[in-house]
């Protein structure tokens, strides 16, 4: 199934590059600005080419505009200058900013309705789209590349300590780590990445506790941060403590800690599921993928984890006839084959139930052990605490969290001090955002 599709797509690209270009002048051009560099960008181009080949009225032009930050800023600059792209890829932390810009965005559900395209929201995995829907379930932007944090574990190191499964609770994380270190399987127990996302945001969702009031911001701009609750303080404090025995080592804010795992120094890694393919390439040992650990004494845990990654937003400001093409393209993206192609060629999860089913039936998950953990971890109906976050100025709030966590890891502050400070500083930014978007 997969090979056939790949062949078809390949043929399509050849056809598109030979034939499609000539038609470009007559067709309506749709600009799609994205931040997918490297091999991901190739896949993006393949997808766009597939759409262009399937019809002649519209031509989707993917344009790489830098990393997520640069792409978003470019989109905003273009809007302010009156020449916005049709589709803009925005990372999840930019959601609140986009949502608040009611005069600039064209909500997906509205676009589809206006163009008379059937749009069935139940096609989509609820935890994936939940982040981007209004409180009454209407989809504002289209999820494109989504991932969630998982636990990667070094099978070889575990075997040395006589262990053959991933830890399920945080208590076990500590136990297993100590056993492995004692047996010489690794120097350290575990390391993490994207610490705000994995250890605070997802931690809250996974344990079904709030990260911020007002349903994590979904309920209004007057939300306040609450990730300095006793549970959070206890968790972060435990991590900080564990540094002493090398149960936990801090490697960096994003993915810088990954080499620690890939080289066998740390036996486990908690980071985005998207790193899966990269890790497959770089590790010289077999590793497994497990779900996030949880504190066993917390009622309601484990719930579901929330997504990271980016979505596609449609911007207003282009001629009306263009938007029919935009709607058609978004529809195309949800097509089961396109989704399957995207999911299997990248580290991201599929967003439709159909694509997930198809991949399951093709035996893909048996051959690629662990790639379905992310999806399973996100399944189920989310509660108000685990639907996602909608907080303004969140990019800067994450930076604040990073700073405070680093102060905690290096011993300059206690867990309580650091988290309290982060909450206070973050709340100031939330109030500023509220004011700017009245």
């Amino acid at each position, binding site marked *: 199934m997969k090979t056939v599709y790949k062949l078809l797509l390949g043929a399509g690209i050849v056809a598109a590059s030979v034939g499609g270009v000539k038609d470009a002048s007559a067709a309506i051009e749709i600009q799609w600005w994205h931040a997918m560099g490297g091999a991901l960008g190739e896949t993006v181009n393949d997808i766009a080419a597939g759409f262009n080949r399937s019809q002649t009225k519209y031509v989707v032009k993917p344009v790489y505009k830098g990393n997520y*930050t640069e792409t*978003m*800023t470019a989109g*905003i600059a273009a*809007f*302010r200058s009156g020449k916005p792209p049709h589709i803009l890829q925005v990372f999840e932390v930019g959601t609140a*900013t986009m949502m*608040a*810009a*009611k*005069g*600039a965005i064209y909500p997906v559900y509205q676009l589809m309705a206006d163009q008379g395209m059937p749009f069935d929201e139940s096609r989509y995995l609820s935890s994936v789209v939940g982040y981007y829907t209004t409180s009454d379930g209407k989809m504002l932007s289209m999820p494109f590349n989504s991932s969630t944090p998982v636990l990667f574990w070094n099978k070889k190191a575990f075997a040395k300590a006589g262990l053959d499964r991933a830890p399920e609770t945080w208590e076990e994380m500590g136990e297993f780590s100590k056993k492995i270190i004692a047996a010489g399987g690794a120097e350290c127990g575990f390391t993490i990445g994207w610490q705000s996302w994995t250890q605070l945001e997802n931690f809250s969702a996974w344990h079904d506790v709030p990260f911020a009031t007002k349903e994590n911001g979904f309920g209004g701009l007057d939300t306040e941060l609450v990730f300095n609750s006793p549970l959070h303080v206890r968790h972060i404090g435990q991590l900080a403590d564990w540094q002493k025995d090398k149960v936990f080592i*801090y*490697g*960096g*804010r994003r993915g*810088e*800690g990954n*080499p*620690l795992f890939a*080289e066998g*120094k740390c036996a486990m890694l908690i980071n985005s599921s998207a790193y899966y393919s990269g890790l497959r390439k770089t590790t010289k040992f077999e590793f497994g993928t497990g779900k996030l650990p949880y504190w066993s004494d917390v009622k309601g845990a484990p719930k579901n984890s929330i997504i990271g990654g980016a979505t596609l937003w449609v911007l207003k400001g282009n001629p009306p006839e263009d938007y029919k093409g935009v709607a058609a393209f978004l529809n195309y993206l949800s097509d089961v084959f396109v989704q399957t192609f995207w999911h299997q060629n990248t580290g991201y999860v599929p967003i439709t139930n159909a694509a997930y089913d198809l991949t399951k039936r093709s035996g893909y998950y048996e051959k690629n052990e662990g790639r379905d953990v992310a999806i399973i971890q996100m399944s189920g109906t989310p509660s108000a605490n685990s639907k996602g976050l909608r907080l303004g*100025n969140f*990019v*800067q709030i994450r*930076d604040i969290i*990073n*700073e*405070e966590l*680093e*102060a905690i*890891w*290096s011993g*300059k502050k206690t867990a309580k001090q650091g988290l309290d400070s982060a909450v206070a500083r973050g709340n100031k930014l939330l109030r*500023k955002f509220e*004011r*700017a*978007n*009245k």
Partner: protein
Amino acid sequence: MEKRVTFRNLWLPYVLVAPQIIITFVFFIWPASQALFQSVLIEDAFGLSTEFVWFENFEEIFTDPLYLDSMITTLVFSVSTTALALTSALLLAVMADRVIKGAAVYKGVLLLPYAVAPAVAGVLWLFLFSPSNGIIALTLQAMGYNWNHVLNGGQAMVLVVIAAAWKQIAYNFLFFLAGLQMIPKSLIEAAAIDGAGPAKRFWTIVFPLLSPTTFFLIVVNVVYAFFDTFGIIHAVTSGGPAGATNILVYKVYADGFVGLDLGGSAAQSVVLMIIVVSLTVVQFRYLERKVQY
């Protein structure tokens, strides 16, 4: 600082200056004033709702204790980078000026860092010093020195100073070399005949004659350290750990470009601009007196 002999012409100077002034106005003054105007507004990223707030943004900056920290960090960073970059470059330029054999090779290689795209340079330094697998980091650790700039703020500062100075050394080297080459050989020879050794010759003749170049480089280096180094910081430490390398311009970038808080970022830029302008004026007033033209 003024020429005794000048030409008198009514319209020629304006013609000569016009191209630069026009371009400066259209592409700098006009956009910059718009950017600065944003410092008295609070608005959303898309510009759809704007509120005029007088000096609130400035108030917010100055009541933030972290801003003061950032100022001190910037000071430490700029002074260290400038000092390191200037002295190393001067040393190397003086040395390179003296040799004939292999001169082209030395000059060619020593200028290379400037040719490296900043993003690539940042990544290279990260590679070398990465606590988990960087060559230099591992060497240091093997020698017993626990290098971990991800947690240790002081080490992070050292790293960014080295990375920033590395690039600047090439730049300074180039101009020092150009300046040195313009010093007439006859002067040096005369001094040598008089019995002055190389060190004495340097301090009494070369250095003073080099002072216009040195002044130029000091001003430019300070500006560079204040403004153009956010790229290095961004690639290597992102202002961390715990704000240890969070220099003012990085904050401007983080808040404005990344965080899209245009008002706050503009206010910070105004403050930054005032600081640098003052520094430059001071340099012109006091340092330039010592320069010999």
